[in-house]
């Protein structure tokens, strides 16, 4: 038999195959999520000292086992809770809060410093609903803080915080921290959870 040269295999599509693999790996790689809602748990204290808080300064949110919301003894949809919380926090009933724009209703909270949101959930409440409510309540605080920051410094609180966390941001961080703390003081996040 005559000696024949083996035909060369066409390697032109090799690149395509490799690209396919590359894209597969790029797509399937799940980057771990590293965002979330930060919370601080209350420390366990031995002394059971009862602090007297006026009923009107407490905004009660109850989440039952069927994921229904009871806000201030009224049934409420999730989408309305943000607005209700903002109204409650921004009420400024005793007139000491000169930056509040609420209705100054004497039956609602005295000022943002005294206003407390109390969240109670049952064991059967789903985690998804709980996070949604937490998210909405944090959003209410952020809304007020943003408004205040916009009025004082011409940028939103979220932006300021992003700048503070940004390593590459050029500017006076000490001053920014001061400004952030001031806003946090004006609208303190007082969110308590009932066990």
């Amino acid at each position: 038999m005559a000696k024949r040269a083996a035909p060369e295999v066409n390697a032109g599509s090799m690149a395509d195959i490799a690209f396919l693999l590359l894209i597969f790996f790029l797509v399937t790689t799940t980057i771990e999520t590293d965002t979330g809602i930060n919370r601080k748990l209350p420390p366990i204290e031995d002394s059971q000292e009862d602090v007297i808080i006026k009923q009107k300064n407490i905004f009660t949110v109850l989440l039952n086992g069927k994921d229904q919301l009871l806000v201030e003894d009224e049934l409420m949809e999730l989408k309305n809770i943000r607005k209700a919380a903002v109204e409650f926090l921004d009420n400024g009933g005793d007139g000491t809060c000169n930056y509040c724009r609420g209705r100054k209703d004497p039956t609602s909270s005295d000022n943002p410093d005294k206003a407390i949101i109390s969240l109670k959930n049952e064991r059967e409440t789903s985690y998804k609903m709980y996070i949604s409510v937490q998210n909405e309540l944090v959003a209410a605080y952020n809304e007020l803080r943003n408004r205040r920051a916009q009025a004082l410094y011409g940028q939103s609180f979220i932006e300021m915080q992003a700048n503070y966390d940004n390593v590459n941001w050029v500017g006076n961080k000490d001053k920014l921290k001061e400004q952030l703390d001031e806003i946090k003081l004006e609208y303190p996040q007082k969110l308590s959870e009932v066990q």
Partner: protein
Amino acid sequence: MAKFNKKKGGELPAISTASLPDIVFMLLFFFMVATVMRENTLMIKNSLPYADQVEKLDKKDLVMYIYAGKPSDAYKQYGTEAKIQLNDKFADIGDIAAFIAQERASKREELIPFLTTALKVDQEANMGLIGDIKQELRKVNALKINYTTRKGNVFDKH
């Protein structure tokens, strides 16, 4: 002369693409090697809830992860109740204290106050379990927690 011209006016030789696969393979290997796989193999379903008022968790070395959710399909024998996973195995509520102590021991002492506990909980789990975890964390004074969520609108149907 005619012969000479013909030679000069020849087409440009095509650039060889024979090394293209090698380059792409190099990229492929780079991605395969550089991809950090999850630290823990999840034995539970872990579809996190959505939220949009989120903050970033920086300093990943200062985060302790607690997973919770229903056992995934491969671990059906452990039942359908939501369970806690610490490191690579299922755990009970009582194991959390030991887990926190162990994590703390592996960090430098001055960093301990900055340790955050990230709760990666499946959105279908119920709050009873999370309440228990939180109570346990309070007992060991690990008060900084983070509910890890995905970024997205709360009201969308996911």
